[in-house]
């Protein structure tokens, strides 16, 4: 459907380009029809001479589409984190490693006091989202199934911030009543957890437990598959998450979280793993982040057990990268169009030589220089714009085909996103190339001496 619209637009564009000679009187119309006929007369040669243009425009569209596609996904991932968000995280300080082993319990990170301070002192906050995250084995009380997942203790705001409303498969997300007045033991399952623990069953209303804990939780909601957060080392795959109210989480865990990982025992005292602050406007992001930084520096003296991530910065970076990439692609595409143009000029010069006598005849019969120029110029522009249309077709074909092949045969997601301006740019430049590289041959043709031209064999 979309492709159809695009083709329509392209044809309109081509019609506009061609309308110029068509509307400039019968002479223009004739030279246009003449050009079409001459091209048709030498089909193979015309095709070969515009091959460069076809490849050039096709390359522009293809490269731009794949470039845009991957960039778009990266940008979307960052945007999902929220451009108006400031992510404050607890980080285990690396220089503390020895101390930890002796004291057995590693106490670090954001505290409830930090959270309260953020809430009360930071100006212009529109939302705070506390999160306590820990790995856990999840099992239903009715079966022996088990899932190694991640428990996220959070509030109702989580669903707002991550826009989970459309991602609810069944039931509801956590609500404020789950926290207050009486903390409820409810849970919302990620898609994979639900699939693993309750295959072929409706998880709603079922009860789950976390290994080593007595407290049971009732499933009140199930989520659909969620797109993972940013690619890279700290990628978050949300489908293995179990969401429970933060209050219930505190009760569940107490203050200290014991864990076993790769044969090592340990205990951590982390009150909050993450707090996501949301400001009203992107321009408040950086000042607010600065205040947070200075606060944390003051209250966590000498201990760098926190970190601040500003998605906006990464967004800016990614956008700058994308812009650089675009310029580069246009440059490459420009070169290929240039090469195509030289091909056109080469063929046009040969054509002029070959049709010297025709030019002489036309001159003798009253054609002015500008008539001859127009004839050859129209011919080259018709060629390049036709080549442009073919190139757009080829480009669209590749942009459609490659992700399909990747998906069908290699199970690979190839991100491709048509960059609409690139299509018009490519088409426009094909026309410009026709004019620029058709000019000299047309000029040569027009400035042949009619007498010499008539004698030419």
């Amino acid at each position: 459907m979309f492709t159809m619209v695009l083709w329509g637009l392209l044809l309109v564009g081509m019609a506009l380009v061609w309308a110029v000679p068509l509307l400039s009187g019968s002479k223009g119309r004739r030279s246009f029809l003449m050009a079409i006929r001459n091209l048709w007369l030498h089909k193979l040669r015309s095709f070969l001479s515009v091959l460069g243009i076809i490849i050039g425009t096709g390359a522009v569209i293809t490269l731009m589409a794949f470039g845009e596609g991957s960039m778009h996904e990266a940008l979307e991932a960052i945007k999902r984190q929220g451009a108006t968000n400031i992510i404050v995280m607890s980080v285990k300080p690396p220089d503390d490693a020895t101390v930890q082993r002796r004291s057995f319990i590693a106490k670090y990170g954001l505290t409830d006091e930090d959270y309260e301070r953020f809430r009360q002192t930071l100006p212009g906050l529109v939302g705070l989202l506390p999160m306590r995250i820990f790995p856990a084995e999840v099992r239903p009380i009715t079966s022996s199934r088990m899932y190694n997942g991640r428990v996220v203790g959070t509030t109702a705001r989580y669903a707002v911030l991550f826009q989970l409303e459309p991602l609810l498969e069944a039931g509801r997300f956590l609500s404020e009543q789950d926290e207050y007045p009486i903390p409820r033991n409810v849970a919302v399952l990620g898609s994979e957890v639900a699939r693993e623990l309750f295959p072929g069953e409706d998880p709603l209303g079922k009860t789950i437990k976390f290994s080593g804990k007595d407290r049971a939780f009732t499933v009140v909601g199930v989520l659909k598959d969620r797109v993972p957060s940013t690619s890279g080392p700290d990628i978050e795959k949300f489908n293995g998450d179990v969401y429970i109210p933060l209050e219930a989480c505190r009760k569940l865990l107490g203050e200290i979280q014991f864990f076993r990982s790769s044969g090592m025992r340990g205990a951590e005292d982390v009150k909050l793993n993450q707090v996501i602050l949301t400001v009203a406007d992107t321009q408040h992001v950086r000042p607010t982040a600065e205040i947070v930084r200075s606060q944390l520096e003051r209250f966590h003296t000498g201990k760098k057990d926190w970190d601040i991530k500003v998605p906006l910065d990464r967004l800016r970076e990614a956008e700058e990268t994308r812009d650089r990439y675009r310029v580069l692609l246009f440059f490459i595409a420009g070169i290929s169009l240039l090469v195509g143009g030289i091909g056109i000029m080469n063929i046009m010069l040969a054509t002029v030589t070959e049709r010297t006598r025709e030019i002489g005849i036309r001159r003798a019969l009253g054609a002015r220089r500008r008539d001859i120029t127009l004839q050859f110029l129209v011919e080259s522009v018709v060629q390049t714009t036709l080549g442009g249309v073919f190139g757009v077709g080829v480009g669209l074909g590749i942009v459609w085909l490659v992700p399909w092949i990747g998906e069908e045969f290699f199970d690979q997601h190839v991100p491709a996103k048509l960059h609409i301006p690139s299509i018009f740019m490519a088409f426009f430049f094909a026309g410009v190339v026709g004019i620029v590289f058709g000019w000299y041959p047309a000029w040569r043709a027009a400035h042949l001496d009619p007498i010499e031209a008539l004698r030419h064999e």
Partner: protein
Amino acid sequence: MTTRVSAAARIVNLVKNYYLEGVVVEALRGITLDFYEGDFVALMGPSGSGKSTLLNLLGCLDRPTSGQYYLAGRNVSQLDDDELSEVRSRYIGFVFQSYHLLPQYTVLENIEVPLLYQGRLDQRARQRCVRLAQMVGLGDRLGHRPSQLSGGQQQRVAIARALVNDPRVILADEPTGNLDSKTSVEIMELLTALNAAGKTIIMVTHENDIAAWARRVIRLRDGRVESDTRTRPLHKLAPVPAR
């Protein structure tokens, strides 16, 4: 019998020099001639006599080094390229030795070409082209390409094309040079008929029996007029010479 005659074309002391690798070649060394309305002139002379140069100048394909050329009462000797194109388009019809039709065009389209450059190719003009094709006997070949026609037929198309802009002068450069004698006679009969209908024709030839169809024979030698003979009176039908 004297009739008032007017000159369709008049050249006064026409000189044409070429510069070939720094050497001056004097192709025309001062020629003065009047070409009358309705005349049929044969230009003759050995190669290098300047007859082709003269024809090119008369056809406004070239400019003289010095001297004047009046065509239809207008001095056209020093016009610029665009103006010369305009003059060719309005006042001159060309017939060439090798026909010079455009191979990718049909008979009708070939006849239309001069009108195309006058910018007046409307429905009426197109009908006129059809009539001209019929007149030269190719009314049933309008859609044929030149390659599908014999030499004589191609030359007929060329003649029709030369007539389409209703020129003051028809310039024929060895119009029968590529044709056998029978076809040559047919072409000369056609030209003679046009002349009888009032067309002014200037024809370059080196064959005496072709020149014999004309009313006036001008011989050039070394860029000068060697002889200028009126073989038939200006305003009588030219008789068909004995074969």
